[in-house]
């Protein structure tokens, strides 16, 4: 499946550091909503940080929260931390986009395991996070 978590060199010890998957908009483009969510959650459940170049639509975000909740289990997976730049006050959609119902989803998004990523600071221009090792 094109959306599966990318293969990595099995010789790498994940305890040596933190793996970051930066996923381009082009890679996400051909995936269904559920495939995108699976791609993200599979990576995060492996302890990785996933960075999406273009983020998710509001509907996909809603489903991501829902699926995350169904996968939380004690002493194993406590959920996700997710951060995007806040939408500017004026909104980031043109009048034509709003009229045509087109949603602008292009927003860099950082997602990681809730027990390993902590947001230190966030504003419209900067997301600062602390990522801990396993």
């Amino acid at each position, binding site marked *: 499946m094109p959306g599966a978590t990318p293969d990595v060199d099995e010789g790498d010890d994940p305890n040596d550091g933190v793996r970051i998957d930066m996923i381009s908009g082009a890679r996400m483009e051909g995936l269904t909503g559920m495939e995108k969510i699976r791609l993200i959650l599979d990576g995060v459940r492996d302890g990785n940080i996933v960075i999406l170049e273009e983020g998710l639509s509001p509907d996909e975000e809603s489903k991501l929260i829902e699926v995350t*909740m169904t996968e939380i289990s004690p002493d194993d997976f406590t959920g996700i931390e997710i951060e995007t730049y806040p939408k500017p006050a004026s909104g980031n959609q043109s009048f034509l986009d709003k009229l045509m119902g087109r949603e602008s989803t292009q927003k860099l998004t950082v997602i990681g395991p809730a027990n390993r990523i902590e947001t230190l600071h966030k504003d419209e221009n900067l997301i600062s996070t602390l990522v801990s090792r396993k």
Partner: protein
Amino acid sequence: MGLLTSLKDSISRVTDGLFAADEPKRIGIYGPPNAGKTTLANRIARDWTGDAVGPESHIPHETRRARRKENVEIERNGRKVTIDIVDTPGVTTKVDYKEFLDHDMDKEDAVRRSREATEGVAEAMHWLREDVDGVIYVLDSTTDPFTQVNTMLIGIIESQDLPALILANKTDLADSDVQQIANAFPQHETIPLSALEGENMDEVYTKIAEYFG
């Protein structure tokens, strides 16, 4: 035959529309955990029906199932608005049972509470996508509103074109900052209130009638 079918469909659409207009609107009360959603739901239900919706608590995730109070009739300026209030579990992207251990719970109770909380949040998200006609978004005005959950939920509500009323709750507390919430969501009107003390409920009811009537 085609003309008759088309006429029948048209009449059916008109009658459906008439009945739909009489049906109460389902208004979901959403927000992060501990914002005072159930306190507000109880306040509204007690003011207009005499009953409560559910128990309130300072422990996060006290509400773990969406609870509905049907046919709440709110009268404003000689006009009646009938709504079903849906009190939903606080939305979050993470639930760790260990947080509940700080509230005098043993591990078994904490794990059960966290499992119910996750089911409740999933249910709340489903309601938001499928089953509500409008949203009252409750925020604790003593805390930072610039959180990812708030940003995402407001985005989801806007993408569904649902009417949304933002309430800045807990104005009875000294460190309440309503302006901070107004600044976070300038595209929406922010109404201050204390659901606990019943402060500014008149304006809240006027806005409910205006937004959801």
